[in-house]
């Protein structure tokens, strides 16, 4: 690495704000008759700070994307009018318009904090030597003091949003766009993010647009306010105080949280009240789910097949929600509120303690038995939509339980009408707004009258309308005899609870000292891959099983060397033999099957068959030893810098590999959503099992594609689209260990060639 600059300079220099002009901007996504934005014209002088508000679905995020020049990044449509920043198209200079997305983590590109902030710098070709200082400065500007090698997955939601802000700042934006940056955060983290924004704006007076529907905390930070109506037309524009005063009624109608206005009256649903839960002909609907004091662990499965387990929640009192009661789980983020709900829903089995329904562990209940006992509403309802129309979605569980009576269907219609979704009965639930999806999710969880409802942060980030609907639904459900458990930070919701359970982040057992790496782990990803590939010719060349056997023996000796613990401090790595054996198991089966088919189809010759079987073992053994050691992050670095592969696909590949382990969580969430609504995997129906696996995989693909689209927007906002001469934050050295490993891997091939020739 080159030495740092001798004199400490401010590395994120103050940048003048950008001059933003929109003229007659109209945007109609293909396939929609009505535009999302209509004839929006507007000028933002340099350094102005603007709050942009509007009802849910009014095109606020779309307007931000238009200002950033990213409308067509993840959507296709018809764009009229013009957008300029300082007289040119936005984004002409990479990173000129910084964008922070609503969902924390949606824009995270890399596995570590340092790399993530440096992403934009890499795109514009900043020399590597200049990066660490620039990264430190950007992190400092948002008040994050984490070391550069902190894993991004270890950050809280609020810290993740500040990381995104730092990533934007590293490119010296002249315009900063914040898309509901705190909507998904608890109040503490939301305040943290706002403080960071205030700090940044104090030192970097750039033009800023914030989208929010909770106005209070932002009014002191901004000067001007813009209001979009439901049709995507700009209807108010002026100094923030004046607009709030003059447009108060309109804003309240839009569902916006206006400072000083009391919370709306919870909506009451006659449909819910008539669906009485307590009394009635179904004795099986008694609330019998109870938990003893418990600790719950969560396990992350990593790409190399290893797992990481940590204690995610500890509850020191028993929970037995009684009919008609409301329990609020509160505590800072990371204290395991969602985890406790998952344990109550039977998706996680407690490590100590138990969650039972009557005498059975909840985790052991069949899918319909579970649906009869409880409903569950996840925090992000969009990923757990199961049906093709709103009405079908509400009826999923009733249908699975064989209760789809005409009365139930009529009840569903009434409930939807009460929630303001009546006109959408035939619509595709995936096309609803976030607030509408939230209301639908709760309606779907309660219509079949389970005696217990678990709701994860049901009001977070919701506008006044959805808030009133959600709070009203929960209250109505409780009055009808249901028990409610919510995780929440919402003071008005906590006020309404009978029992408040405060969770503390569980104390983690101190991490055991990491074991010494094995010798082969000193090699980089390319050498490891080469080593695994060298086995292919080594397997093919031998034409007799005796040669193959010798080659295999040589490989086995080399495997022992490769897996030898490297010298150094720390305990010896454990379970090496077991892991390799486990990974060889499929290979051994494959060898058996190849050997047999060769005997059958290759002239019933035993020698050939044994040779073919050994060939498989020779090909697979080095893979079983070496491939788990490939670090996906470093793989990207090496493919681009050593093999000179095109950098954009390589970066995309690295980003995807980096998120593979989150797919497991998405998978379990979708599976749980199906299970609690009575259509989950049922071991007694093996054919349905295959169909279920297919549907869950489909849900996973949909979610993955959304991730990709969001990440594309975030990456383009940081200059990825024009990254032709990219530099790299991390070097990709070729070391002695790499050479040694490759040479060693070639030995079996040489042996094979020599013995075959001889």
């Amino acid at each position, binding site marked *: 690495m080159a030495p740092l600059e001798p004199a400490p300079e401010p590395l994120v220099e103050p940048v003048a704000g950008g001059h933003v002009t929109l003229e007659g901007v109209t945007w109609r996504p293909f396939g929609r008759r009505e535009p999302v934005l209509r004839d929006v014209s507007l000028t933002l002088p340099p350094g102005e700070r603007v709050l942009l508000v509007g009802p849910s679905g009014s095109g606020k995020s779309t307007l931000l994307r238009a200002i950033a020049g990213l409308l067509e990044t993840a959507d296709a449509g018809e764009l009229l009018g013009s957008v300029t920043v300082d007289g040119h198209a936005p984004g002409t200079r990479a990173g000129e318009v910084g964008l922070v997305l609503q969902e924390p983590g949606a824009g995270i590109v890399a596995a570590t904090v340092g790399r993530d902030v440096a992403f934009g710098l890499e795109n514009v070709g900043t020399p590597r030597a200049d990066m660490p200082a620039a990264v430190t400065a950007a992190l400092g500007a948002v008040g994050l003091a984490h070391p550069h090698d902190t894993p991004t997955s270890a950050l809280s939601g609020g810290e993740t949003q500040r990381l995104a802000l730092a990533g934007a700042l590293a490119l010296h934006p002249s315009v900063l766009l914040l898309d509901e940056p705190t909507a998904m955060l608890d109040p503490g983290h939301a305040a943290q993010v706002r403080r960071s924004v205030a700090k940044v704006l104090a030192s970097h007076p750039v033009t800023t647009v914030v989208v929010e529907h909770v106005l209070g905390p932002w009014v002191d930070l901004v000067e001007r306010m813009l209001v979009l109506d439901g049709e995507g037309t700009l209807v108010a524009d002026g100094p923030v105080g004046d607009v709030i005063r003059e447009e108060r009624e309109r804003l309240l109608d839009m569902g916006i949280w206006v400072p000083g206005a009391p919370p709306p009256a919870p909506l009451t649903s006659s449909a819910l009240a008539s669906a009485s839960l307590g009394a009635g002909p179904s004795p099986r609907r008694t609330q019998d789910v109870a938990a003893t004091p418990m600790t719950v662990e969560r396990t992350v499965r990593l790409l190399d097949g290893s797992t990481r387990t940590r204690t995610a929640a500890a509850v020191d009192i028993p929970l037995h929600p009684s009919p008609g009661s409301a329990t609020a789980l509160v505590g800072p983020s990371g204290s395991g509120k969602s985890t406790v709900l998952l344990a109550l829903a039977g998706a996680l089995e407690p490590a100590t303690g138990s969650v039972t329904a009557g005498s059975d562990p909840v985790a052991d209940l069949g899918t319909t038995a579970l649906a009869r006992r409880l409903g569950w509403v996840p925090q992000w309802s969009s990923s757990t939509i199961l049906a093709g129309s709103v009405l079908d979605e509400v009826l999923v569980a009733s249908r699975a339980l064989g209760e789809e009576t005409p009365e139930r269907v009529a009840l569903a219609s009434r409930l939807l009408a009460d929630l303001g979704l009546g006109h959408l009965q035939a619509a595709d639930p995936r096309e609803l707004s976030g607030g509408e999806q939230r209301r639908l999710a709760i309606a779907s969880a309660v219509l079949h009258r389970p005696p217990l409802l678990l709701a994860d942060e049901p009001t977070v980030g919701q506008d006044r309308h959805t808030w009133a609907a959600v709070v009203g639904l929960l209250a109505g459900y409780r009055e009808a005899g249901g028990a409610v458990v919510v995780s929440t930070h919402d003071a008005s919701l906590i006020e309404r609870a009978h029992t408040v359970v405060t969770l503390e982040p569980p104390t983690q057992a101190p991490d055991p000292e990491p074991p010494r790496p094995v010798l082969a782990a000193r090699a980089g990803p390319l050498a490891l891959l080469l080593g695994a590939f060298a086995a292919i010719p080594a397997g093919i060349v031998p034409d007799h099983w005796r040669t193959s056997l010798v080659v295999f023996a040589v490989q086995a000796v080399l495997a022992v060397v490769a897996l030898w613990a490297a010298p150094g401090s720390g305990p010896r790595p454990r379970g090496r033999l077991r892991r390799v054996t486990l990974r060889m198991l499929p290979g051994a089966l494959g060898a058996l099957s190849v050997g047999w088919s060769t005997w059958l189809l290759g002239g019933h010759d035993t020698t050939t068959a044994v040779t073919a079987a050994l060939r498989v073992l020779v090909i697979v053994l080095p*893979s079983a030893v070496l491939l788990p050691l490939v670090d996906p992050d470093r793989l990207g670095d090496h493919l681009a810098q050593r093999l000179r592969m095109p950098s954009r696909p390589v970066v995309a590949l690295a980003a995807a590999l980096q998120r593979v382990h989150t797919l497991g969580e998405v998978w379990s969430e979708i599976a749980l959503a199906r299970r609690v609504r009575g259509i989950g995997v049922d071991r007694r129906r093996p054919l349905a099992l295959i169909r279920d696996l297919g549907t869950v995989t489909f849900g996973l693909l949909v979610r993955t594609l959304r991730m990709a689209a969001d990440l594309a927007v975030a990456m383009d906002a940081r200059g990825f689209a024009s990254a032709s001469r990219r530099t790299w934050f991390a070097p990709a050295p070729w070391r002695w260990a790499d050479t040694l490993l490759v040479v060693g891997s070639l030995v079996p091939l040489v042996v094979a060639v020599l013995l075959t020739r001889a």
Partner: protein
Amino acid sequence: MAAQTDTSATTDGTTATTGTTTGAGTARGRSILATRPLTGWRTVDILTIAFLGAALGIAFWGWGVFYNGPLSAITFGFAPLGGLFAGPWFLAGVVGGLVVRRPGAALFCEVVAALVSMIPGTEWGATTLVSGIVQGLGTEIAFALLGYRAFGIAAAMLAGALAGPFAAAYESFTWIQDWSLAWKVAYAGVLALSGAVVAGAGGWLLTRALAAAGALNAFPPGQEHRETRAV
């Protein structure tokens, strides 16, 4: 699958209002093509292929466990039969090609999927990646032969089918080296059949379902879906 929607998508001829070019093509209907130039990959194209490949790679790995366990017990008596169940491996290439519709999309997607399914450990070790490259090439060549202008069900089935002989040719150097030529040819045929049905027709249906779920709005299939039912 729940996401299957209308049946009008294949028969409509009313795709005229879009800004992108439409091309003549498949047996039924027309395919909307990617924005020009075809080699001008947008960020969302690259990321979608990478993420789609990664998710399908995990599914591949799961299918591999099933394929290696229960299925090989069934097909143990007669190996070429196993080829009937090989179609899912070609799915990533077909879906990648159908979604992004740019040169290289099919190959890239299949390779990512193979890479992701290889790292957790499979029956085939490092050869998984080679298989992915070879099968992806077969699929890619099919789309290339059609000039990247046809993405209907027929094109998808051709793409899925072509992966079969490529896979068989490669495997004749590794796993099935010692089979008689006749069996190798038969095996290639079985792979092609499975590829056409499972990866081709299946991939086409999957792509349509993804479009109907609103997950492909930035891509031609999403546009095809939306033009058939403007809201």
